[in-house]
C-alpha cells in the first residue's frame, strides 16, 4: 500500500468516524428547533423507488464499508440497536426497544426486541449483538467503526445478560451517550461465524455475494446486482417495524439503486421521472430544476446548511527546513494570527455563496454549521468583509506594499503562495478562484493549483508539501465528539499542525482540555459550555479560515410519500422503510 493510499484510507476513515459519532445528552435530550416532527403518513404497500448512486458500492459488508455509497446501500439492508432520527437529530429505539444508563454513566443495559427475525427467517437474539461487537472490535479486521468503540484507549465491553438483554461497559462516562450505537449494523451470527472463525470475514458479503448469503435486519434485502449498472433490493418480509395501523413496513416492494457517474446525467434522469430520489445535487442543478419544474411533479427541498464546512487552511506544520525551505519561509506569515485575520477579513463569503452556490449555502466564521442548532455558539463574531480593515491589520503588523501594490512582509519579501484544491470538485475550484481574487486585493499573489483528490490528501496528511489548501470536512453527527481528532493537538486530523508532540500554543492546550472534558461529561449544558469555548477559541485563533457551509439539497418525485430529508447522512433514505408511492403526485411540503 502506497503512502498516499494509506493517507487516503486514514482520511476516509476519519471522515467516516466523524460520520458516525453524534451528539447529545443522556436521559434528557435537549430541545431542538428541529423537533417539530410530523407523524408519518399511513402509506400504500407496493411499488419501487429508483435512486441514483454516483459509483458502485464497494462492499455490502458493514464491518468493512468505508465509502459513502456502500454505507448508504448497507443502511437500507441493515439495522442498528439505537437509531438517530435524521429529522429530529434525536435517538430513538431500533432493535433495542429500551435502554437504561447506570448512574455513573458507564453502564448501558439494552433491552432487545423480541420476535425479530433476520431477512432469512432466523430469529435475532443477544448472541448476534455480542458477536457483532466482537467483529467491530476485532483488531485484525480493522473495521472503521473500531475507533468509535474505544473510549480512553479501552474497548467497550459487551456482555449478554439473557437472550434479550445486553450490557455495555464503558470505561468512562461518554458524552454522546447512546448515539454511539447509531449505524452500527447488527449482523447474523449464523451466517458469518464460520467465515469469522476461518479468518475469511473480509471476503464475504462483497458486492458479488449471492442474495441467500446475505441477511440483515433492515427493511430491504439483496435481490440482484449488475456491476456498473444497478443494485436491486427487495422488501424484507421479516422486517420488524410496523406503521401505526399495524401494517408491516417497508411499504415498497423494491428499491433500485442505479449507477450514474455524472451529476448532470443524474439530474436528467430525475427530471424525466426515471428516478424518484435525487440526493447530493449541486446548487446549480438544483436551481435549474426548480426553474424548470413548472408542473410541480417534483419536490425540491433545500434542507438548509448541512454539517459540511469549507475552509482555507494555511500550512503551520513543523517542517523539515532543508526539504521544504520554500514553504518554511512562508510559515512565519501563516503562523501570524494577524495575517490569518487579514486573510479571513478579505474573504468574500457572501460572494462565494451567491456565485458558487446560487445562494444555497451559508457563510461561516467558526467550525459549527448554522444547521447544527443544538451546538452552535451564539458568541461567534461575524465580521463583515473589509479589505481596508485587513490592510490596516497587515500594516500594523509590519507588512507593507511595493509600487505595484504587492504585499511585502517585514523583511520586504513579496507575499505569495499557492492554494491547492481538489480538481474533481468544481465548486471548490470556484471558491479558490474567488479567494484568489480577494487576496489579490490585499496585494497577495495567489496561485491556484487543482490537484487530483488523492494527491491532495497525501500532501495535507503526509508530506505537508503545500502552502495552503482549500478543503472541506463533513461531520456525520451534530455532536462535538467526532471533532476530537481535529481539535486535539495529538489528533490524527489536527490538520494545521499534524503530529504535534505537545500543544504548540496555549490555546491549543486549552482546546485539548476542553475537548477531553466534553467527551467524558454527560450533562448537555456543561458540554455546551465547554464546546462554546472551543468554538470561541477556534474563531479567535483561526487555525482554519472558515468560509461557508453548503445546504443539503435533495429532490424527490411528488409521488413519494413520507419523504423527510435531514441534514445528517443519509439525507434522503434514512426513513426509506416509511416511504411509499402514491398513485398520483401530492403537494410538496
Amino acid at each position, binding site marked *: 500500500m502506497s503512502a498516499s493510499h494509506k493517507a487516503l484510507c486514514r482520511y476516509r476513515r476519519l471522515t467516516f468516524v466523524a460520520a458516525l459519532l453524534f451528539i447529545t445528552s443522556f436521559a434528557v435530550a435537549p430541545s431542538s428547533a428541529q423537533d417539530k416532527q410530523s407523524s408519518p403518513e399511513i402509506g400504500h404497500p407496493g411499488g419501487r423507488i429508483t435512486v441514483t448512486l454516483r459509483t458502485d458500492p464497494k462492499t455490502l459488508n458493514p464491518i468493512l464499508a468505508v465509502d459513502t455509497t456502500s454505507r448508504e446501500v448497507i443502511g437500507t439492508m441493515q439495522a442498528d440497536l439505537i437509531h438517530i432520527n435524521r429529522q429530529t437529530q434525536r435517538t430513538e429505539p431500533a432493535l433495542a426497544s429500551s435502554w437504561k444508563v447506570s448512574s455513573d454513566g458507564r453502564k448501558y443495559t439494552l433491552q432487545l426486541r423480541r420476535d425479530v427475525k433476520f431477512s432469512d427467517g432466523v430469529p435475532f437474539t443477544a448472541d448476534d449483538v455480542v458477536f457483532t461487537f466482537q467483529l467491530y472490535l476485532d483488531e485484525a479486521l480493522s473495521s472503521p467503526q473500531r475507533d468509535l468503540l474505544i473510549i480512553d484507549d479501552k474497548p467497550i465491553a459487551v456482555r449478554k445478560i439473557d437472550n434479550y438483554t445486553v450490557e455495555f461497559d464503558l470505561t468512562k462516562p461518554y458524552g454522546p451517550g447512546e448515539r454511539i450505537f447509531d449505524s452500527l449494523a447488527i449482523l447474523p451470527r449464523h451466517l458469518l461465524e464460520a467465515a469469522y472463525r476461518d479468518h475469511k470475514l473480509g471476503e464475504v458479503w462483497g458486492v458479488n455475494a449471492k442474495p441467500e448469503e446475505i441477511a440483515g435486519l433492515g427493511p430491504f434485502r439483496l435481490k440482484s446486482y449488475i456491476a456498473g449498472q444497478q443494485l436491486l433490493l427487495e422488501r424484507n418480509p421479516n422486517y420488524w417495524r410496523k406503521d401505526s395501523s399495524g401494517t408491516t413496513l417497508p411499504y415498497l416492494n423494491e428499491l433500485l439503486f442505479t449507477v450514474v457517474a455524472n451529476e448532470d446525467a443524474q439530474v436528467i434522469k430525475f427530471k424525466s421521472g426515471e428516478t424518484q430520489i435525487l440526493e447530493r445535487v449541486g446548487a*446549480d442543478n438544483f436551481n435549474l430544476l426548480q426553474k424548470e419544474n413548472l408542473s410541480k411533479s417534483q419536490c425540491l427541498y433545500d434542507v438548509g446548511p448541512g454539517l459540511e464546512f469549507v475552509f482555507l487552511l494555511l500550512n503551520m506544520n513543523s517542517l523539515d527546513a532543508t526539504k521544504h525551505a520554500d514553504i518554511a519561509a512562508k510559515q512565519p506569515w501563516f503562523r501570524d494570527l494577524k495575517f490569518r485575520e487579514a486573510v479571513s477579513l478579505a474573504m468574500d463569503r457572501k460572494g462565494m455563496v*451567491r*456565485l458558487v452556490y446560487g445562494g444555497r449555502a451559508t457563510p461561516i466564521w467558526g467550525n459549527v454549521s448554522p444547521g447544527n442548532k443544538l451546538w452552535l455558539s451564539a458568541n461567534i463574531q461575524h465580521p463583515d468583509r473589509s479589505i481596508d480593515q485587513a490592510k490596516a491589520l497587515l500594516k500594523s503588523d509590519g507588512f507593507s506594499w511595493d509600487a505595484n501594490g504587492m504585499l511585502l512582509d517585514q523583511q520586504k519579501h513579496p507575499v505569495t503562495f*499557492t492554494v491547492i484544491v481538489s*480538481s474533481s470538485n468544481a465548486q471548490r475550484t*470556484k471558491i479558490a*478562484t474567488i479567494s484568489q481574487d480577494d487576496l489579490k486585493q490585499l496585494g497577495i499573489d495567489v*496561485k*491556484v493549483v487543482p490537484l487530483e483528490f488523492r494527491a491532495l490528501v497525501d500532501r495535507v496528511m503526509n508530506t505537508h508539501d503545500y502552502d495552503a489548501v482549500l478543503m472541506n470536512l463533513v461531520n456525520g453527527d451534530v455532536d462535538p465528539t467526532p471533532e476530537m481528532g481535529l481539535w486535539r493537538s495529538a489528533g490524527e486530523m489536527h490538520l494545521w499542525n499534524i503530529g504535534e508532540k505537545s500543544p504548540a500554543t496555549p490555546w491549543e492546550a486549552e482546546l485539548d482540555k476542553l475537548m477531553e472534558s466534553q467527551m467524558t461529561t454527560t450533562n448537555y449544558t456543561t458540554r455546551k459550555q465547554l464546546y462554546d469555548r472551543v468554538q470561541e477559541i477556534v474563531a479567535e485563533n483561526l487555525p482554519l479560515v472558515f468560509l461557508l457551509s453548503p445546504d443539503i439539497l435533495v429532490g424527490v418525485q411528488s409521488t413519494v410519500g413520507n419523504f423527510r430529508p435531514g441534514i445528517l447522512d443519509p439525507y434522503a433514505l434514512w426513513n426509506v422503510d416509511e416511504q411509499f408511492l402514491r398513485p398520483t403526485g401530492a403537494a410538496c411540503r
Partner: protein
Amino acid sequence: MSARAKRNALLSLFIALHLVVIFPGFFSTQGYGEQDRDVPFSPPTRLHFVRPDGHFSFRPFVYGWNQAALDTGTYEVDRSQIYPIHFLTAGSPYAIVKGITARTHLLGVEKPGRLFLFGTDDFGRDEFSRMLYGGRISILAGWIGAAIALFTGALVGLIAGYSGRRVDSVTMRLVELFMALPWLYLLFAVRAILPLRIETTDTFILLIAVVGIIGWARPARLVRSMVLSAKERNFVLAARAMGASNFHILRKHILPQVLALLLTMAAYLIPQFILAEVTLSFLGLGIGEPVPSWGTLLAELQKYNVLVNYWWMYAPAIALVALFLIYHWASSMIQQKVGVPLT
C-alpha cells in the same frame, strides 16, 4: 470573386484575426480576470442607436441593469440609465508586451455602466475579453506546438530519408513508436510529476512542448518520403556526380522542395495543435485560472445548467470553428499553389 480577390480577402481576414488575438488588451473591454460579482452570467449587453425618446444617436449606447432586479438574480434593462460607448478610451491597464503597459481600449463605457459584448461567466467576468485573451493562448499553443513538431520532424525526416538504410529504419521504427504513444495519458503523467509551484503559463508551455514533441512523427515520415523521391531525381544525381557535398545537396536541392510541404503542413498542423490545447484545457490539464484559453472557456459548457441556460458561453466554439475554416482554406490554397499532396 476572382481567385486573387478571394486570396486577398482571406489573407486580410487571417491577419486581422491574428492581430486581434495577439493584442487582446486593446480590443478587449476589460482585463480577463476582473470579477464583477454582482453580475454572474449576465447576458450580452445590447448596443442601441435609438434613444428611448425616439432620437437616433450615431454614437451607440447601452442601458444599465435594474439594480433591484439584479439583487434577486434577474437581468432587467433599466432604460433610465444610458451609457454611451466611447472609442479609444482609457480602461483597465494591460501589458502590450511584458513591461509595457497601456490603458487604451478600443471600446468602453463609463462606470457604473457595464459593457459585456458576449455576456459574462459565472464570476461576472467579461466573456468577450476572456475570449480574446483565450485566443492568444490557444493560437500561441498551436503555433509553438506546430513549430516544434515541424522542426523536429523535418530534421529527422531529412536525415532518415537522405542517409537511408540503417539510420532510416531505426528512425522510422522510432517514429512508429511515437505515433503509437497515447499522448493524452502521457500528458496526464507529465502534469502529475510537475512540481506545484510552477507558473501556470510555464506548465502550459511545457505541455504544449510535449504535444509538439510527440507530434513530430507524422511530419518526419512525410519529409522522409519526400526526400527519398527527391534524392533519386536527375538533378540531384547530377549534383552528386559533380562532387557536391551532402550538405550542399540537402540545402540547395532537397530542402527547397520540402519547404513547400512544410508550409502546407504548418497550416494543417496549427489548428490540430490548437485543438490539442483546447482538449487539454477542456479536460482540466491546461492553463490554470484565472488565465483563460478557449479550452477552459469551453470547459464551462460541461456543466448542464450552463449548457442549457447561457447560450453566450458558446462564443469560443464559434470562434474556434471560424479560425479552423480560415486555416483550412489557407492550407488548401498553399497546397494548390505548391501542388504537394498532404497525406
